[in-house]
């Protein structure tokens, strides 16, 4: 009995700092957002801030955010999956090194990397100079949704590669051999063994790219030139330009709903993957 009590206090002591951190910097801010989002300037309860999303300008930006995040997530997946497959098949001794190469850009400040893309995509930037040198016409990518997607893909690609590669690397070679032994060709083996077993990695990669893409405002500000306003930009403006914390919090709550929906979807899909057959 005494020991149990002691163990309890030991655990409390060890987990204390983390719980404190969680409370101070995650839970309390969340409640502050909830409070501001559901009250007006005088502190009275209202749904007006949340309803703001139905105004055409916000609705449009939310849809644009959703669309661009979907694109960037899809492109990340299409780049990361084949790459991770190749990495897996190489059976390199020093796989960590290879993975590191892809993570290396993450060590450079996020804003600097995005600004670097500005100089590449500008009308008289690196890309267009190169194209003109080859005799092609220059492209006007900068300040378009395409430029934002390029930025999102570049910035968030490592978040897709890592989980996908990890899930692929975990697949036992014997399972692939067993599938072929049982008569499946490479395509069938991929569909019935490799793809389903890498699904948890794909899904966690999708969340890790989709959510930051949905909420970004820096990428759209730098590469969209203020012309492509994502929902993140409007939220930022409410706080920093209009000092309207209530409206900003209200819009944030809407965004949070989308994040919760996508996480619920992931959780459901992942659970399904545990138990039932996919084909």
């Amino acid at each position: 009995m005494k020991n149990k009590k002691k163990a309890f206090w030991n655990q409390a002591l060890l987990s204390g700092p983390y719980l404190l951190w969680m409370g101070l910097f995650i839970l309390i801010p969340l409640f502050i957002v909830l409070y501001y989002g559901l009250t007006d300037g005088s502190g009275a309860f209202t749904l007006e801030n949340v309803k703001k999303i139905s105004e055409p300008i916000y609705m449009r930006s939310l849809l644009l955010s959703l669309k661009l995040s979907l694109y960037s997530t899809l492109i990340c997946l299409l780049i990361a999956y084949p790459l991770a497959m190749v990495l897996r098949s190489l059976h390199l001794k020093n796989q960590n090194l290879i993975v590191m190469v892809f993570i290396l850009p993450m060590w450079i400040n996020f804003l600097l990397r995005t600004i670097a893309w500005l100089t590449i995509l500008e009308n008289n930037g690196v890309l267009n100079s190169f194209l003109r040198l080859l005799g092609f016409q220059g492209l006007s990518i900068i300040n378009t949704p395409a430029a934002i997607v390029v930025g999102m893909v570049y910035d968030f690609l490592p978040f897709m590669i890592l989980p996908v590669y990890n899930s692929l690397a975990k697949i036992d070679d014997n399972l692939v051999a067993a599938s072929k032994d049982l008569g499946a060709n490479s395509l069938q083996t991929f569909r019935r063994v490799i793809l389903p077993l890498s699904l948890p990695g794909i899904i966690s990669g999708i969340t890790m790219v989709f959510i930051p893409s949905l909420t970004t405002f820096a990428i759209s500000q730098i590469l969209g030139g203020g012309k492509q306003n994502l929902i993140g930009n409007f939220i930022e403006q409410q706080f920093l330009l209009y000092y309207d914390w209530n409206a900003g919090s209200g819009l944030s709550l809407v965004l949070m709903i989308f994040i919760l929906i996508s996480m619920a979807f992931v959780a459901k899909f992942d659970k399904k993957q545990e138990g039932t057959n996919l084909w």
Partner: protein
Amino acid sequence: MNENKLIDLQHVTKKFGDTLVLDDLSLYIRENEFLTLLGPSGCGKTTTLRILGGFEQPDSGRVIFDGQDITNLPPHKRQLNTVFQKYALFPHMNIAENIAFGLRIRKKSKQYIQDKIKYALKLVNLDGYENRMPDSLSGGQQQRIAIARAIVNEPKILLLDEPLGALDLKLRQDMQYELIRLKNELGITFVYVTHDQEEALTMSDTIVVMNQGYIQQIGTPEKIYNEPENAFVADFIGESNIIRSVFLEDRLVEILGAKFPCVDTGFGKNHEVDVVIRPEDIDLVAPEQGTLCGVVTSLIFKGVHYEMEVQAGGFEWLVHSTDLCAVGTQVGIHVDPFDIQIMNVPESEDEEAVNLEE
């Protein structure tokens, strides 16, 4: 047993980097045979099996299957199935789906698949396990499912890569009988890889003893055990006393200075040979009745028998006997002539290299 050659490996050589794993290996497997590839780790037995399964390509040589050259045929087109060492059950499918995998690839009808699953589970004594997931099964059960998954495809040959290696002793012995029963019921050819000599002796029709990429001896379990062709085989299969001796003349050999009558002929006169005597074939008698005299230096109770070491003629004899002789007892060593196995002394350094500590 059918005399048909179902598999014919012809002059197969395989290198991994600079390491020669198989050196000009030729071997045939008859229909309906239980053939075991036996040897220490690194002897090339698993590589041989992987070449049969199509997971490795030989650098030179051919693999003939039922009269057809399948050397370069990919695994999924071969009419054989493998039971992998670590079972390799698909963790995202339940037992029924695992078993159905090969049948679904071949687009068999639902009814056919259902019947096959039922039949296979019955065969491996796991009825009613259809909806379980692999990780909820014990090692022995997973192994049975792996076998069931392979045999529903009605392969002509079942390849088994140390399938019992991960199981505990009791389970391993049960599974040995199970495998023999399965083979008899199914009537298909088994190619079995193991480093466990007891397993090989229990189950096989034919044992292929391998070492360092070479076949050391091919034969029935009795032949391999009683008449090993060289010191490696003698030492690897069971325990033995291997003594460098002189073959005086037909039916007489001089071991450690004492003349022992034997049954072998044709080794010349006064020719140097290796003699193999199994520990259970040595009779300990009164000193004056023995061909050699010695003293018991160690005694260990092993359950079925006592294991004794006897110092005689400058050699430490390993003796298994159900009769106890206390340490320090003076004993005589007697060996029946037919229990003395004569072998040629290895001619080259290479053959000598068969390391005896295995």
